[in-house]
């Protein structure tokens, strides 16, 4: 009976060397040599070498001249140390109507939360839609990770007019840029067509800079 215990300990140690040592280190070695960009997190660097973000990790954009990502439940928004969805269910009043409280001193409660209806109202105002227009659902729902790097193509199209106005260019130019940066379905049938928000915004700054005299992000 107790020789089984001895075998357990020995075999655990031997297999550990293989599955927790050799295996991950071999994958690490090969991928660092052959695929260093992906293996290190698909980082985007400015021309000065500063890290601007990762193409895979969404980041917050609130200015009108940029495409806006989906709302995020990761920390205070797009915080990769706190990846998470809202985990609010379909009958959650908080999810639908939000929480809007004032503290005793008259300030907004830091735990306030924008519901789907609040987000839809804000999205309509930002993009000049009528007060009853139905909006693309990904624009008013939070993703599972809170770090979703993409938005749907419909969502990007709705935002195109706002971006064009802020950048003093016409909508068709921005729409062309959306089409150019959009990803189709993988292998033609997997997943959904999408626009990577960081990529499209970097392309915007490249092709339609706000003010030519202004320094582009990261450029020296």
């Amino acid at each position, binding site marked *: 009976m107790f020789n*089984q*215990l001895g075998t*357990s*300990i*020995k*075999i*655990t140690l031997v*297999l*550990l060397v*293989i*599955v927790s040592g050799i*295996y*991950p280190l071999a*994958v*690490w070695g090969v*991928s*660092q040599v052959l695929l260093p960009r*992906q293996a290190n*997190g698909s*980082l985007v660097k400015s021309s000065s070498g*500063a*890290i601007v*973000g990762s193409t*895979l*990790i969404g*980041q917050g*954009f609130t200015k009108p001249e*940029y495409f806006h990502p989906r709302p995020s439940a990761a920390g205070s928004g797009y915080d990769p*140390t*706190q*990846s*998470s*969805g809202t*985990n*609010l269910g*379909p*009958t959650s009043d908080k*999810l639908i109507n939000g929480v809007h409280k004032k503290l005793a001193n008259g300030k907004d409660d830091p735990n306030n939360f924008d519901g*789907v209806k609040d987000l*839809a109202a804000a999205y309509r105002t930002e993009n000049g839609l009528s007060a009853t227009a*139905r909006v*693309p*659902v*990904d*624009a*008013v*729902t939070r*993703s*599972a990770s809170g*770090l*979703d790097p993409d*938005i*749907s193509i419909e969502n990007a199209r709705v935002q195109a007019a706002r971006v064009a106005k802020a950048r003093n260019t016409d909508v068709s130019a921005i729409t062309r840029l959306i089409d150019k940066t959009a990803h189709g379905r*993988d292998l033609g*049938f*997997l*997943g959904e067509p*999408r626009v990577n928000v*960081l990529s499209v*915004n970097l392309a915007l700054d490249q092709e339609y800079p706000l003010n030519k005299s202004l320094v582009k992000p990261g450029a020296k």
Partner: protein
Amino acid sequence: MTLIGWLQIVVFFGLLLALTKPMGIFMHRVFEGEPTFLTPVMRPIEKLIYRLCGVREDDDMPWTRYTVAMLFFSIVTLLLTYAILRWQAYLPLNPMRLGSDKAPGWGTAMTPDLAFNTAASFTTNTNWQAYSGENTMSYFSQMVALASHNFFSAAAGIAIAIAFVRGLARKSATGVGNFWVDLTRATLYVLLPLCIVIALVYVQQGMPQNFHAYHTAQTVEGSAQIIPGGPVASQEAIKMLGTNGGGIFNANSSHPFENPTPLTNFIQMLTIFLIGGGIVYTFGIAVGNVRQGWAIFAAMSALFLLGVAVCYWQEAKGNPIINAVATGGNMEGKEARFGIASSTLFATITTDASCGAVNSMHDSYTPLGGLVPMANILTGEVIFGGVGAGLYGMLMYAILAVFIAGLMVGRTPEYLGKKVEAFEVKMAMLACLILVADVLGFTALSCVTHVPHPATYWNTVSGTPPSVNALASANTNNSGPHGFSEILYTFDSATGNNGSAFAGISVNTPYWNLTIGIAMLIGRFLMIIPLLAIAGSMAKKKRVPVSSGTFPTDNALFAGLLVGVVIIVGALSYFPAVALGPVVEHFLMLGGKTF
């Protein structure tokens, strides 16, 4: 619902079907010790392991000794994981100093109850995440304490299934195989080679594989963003293949680093079912009639397709309250790159199998959409199921099915030419009832428990400011029936060793960590022991010749009966609980009621 959405489901199932036979034949050869294309590479390593560990390959163990070996192995690995997690501050590969007092402000402590919960979770192949990887676990903990279990618990699951099959296939035998040999072969020939290939594909698609400190990026709009790293790809490969499901990050397979593209998503789904499907064919070969295997496969497929159809339909239809302001179905808690079809397919697969990885947040599903993952786990995860665990779970139902068929025609039931007698039926019922008692007992307990004093220790919910809940059920994130669903899903997932969650509930408190940890251990080991007892008892029996009175178990009629038994046992056990959660919520949602 879209045509292209259905196409993803159809292509997935077609590929699974195509891979089942080659995978089944390969595994049969491996566990019979026959040469395969990997033998020249792996056989010397295998022999070296036996020599180092003092294992005799020809030592055929009776079921009791096989069980003892499995239990000792589980205890040793459980203690090892607990120790590593508690001491991670003193161990290498911890660039962010997590778990030490030099950890950054966003770090989370590795408390004793969290370490116990996590060790139990990974030992039982549950991979329930009460922790958030990115702010709690060092790279060393991920790689050595957690990813090792992804191999070990999966290999142990496969070993037990193979032993169970041997019990059914052998006649007048005392042994069911050698646990150490089965464990080693499952690791070296099945899990490891596939993982190496898959991990490299994952890196190519964008999954990180590094050990560097987290980077701080200066975003385009000028705020700071901390970007984590880690040995993600190597862990993701085994996480899915071993139906483990414990991710590097809190958001699991919805995190863009854990699942960067729809293609990686598809590979992840396929690898969840790959071994669980293949082993059914292995079973067919072992019992000398592959149609026996296909009958089981057909029953599993029917339940799988039913589940995914309901889930996809409900999520695409969405929540009428949200549909009033937005178009596009229920995208709350889903990622834009996957959309609804790839999310619901993943949710169905991960809960059919005991994987429990998630690429969308089940908590935010519509009531009936979320009922599908919940019900899948309530079946005991026999729809392909966890690696190995799915097959032995389904064979338990097969024994009940022939018993019920035998009662209907008044004959002694037989399965695979062996008489099914009182002992086997008692053991199968015992396994079944243990699961029911575990799920419903802990759910009921947690709905009413007032946490003992001092509540400040037992149920302190972390966060600022720290709050203390005197009532365990106050930790739910939702009110109304959805809050009850969160508790039910928690113990459903723990008992079924699934690991997915209605994740809003705050479970990182001593009360929840301990109850869930115990529920996981009961769900794994108290189910396995009666099943190995059946295997031992069946192995000893003689084969009775097939006669005109034998109920055939290799045709559509039996597959249908099996589906019926799974549904009836599940519905009889759980309908009242499910009615209080998702069912009542569905009608309230249609009425526009919110809580």
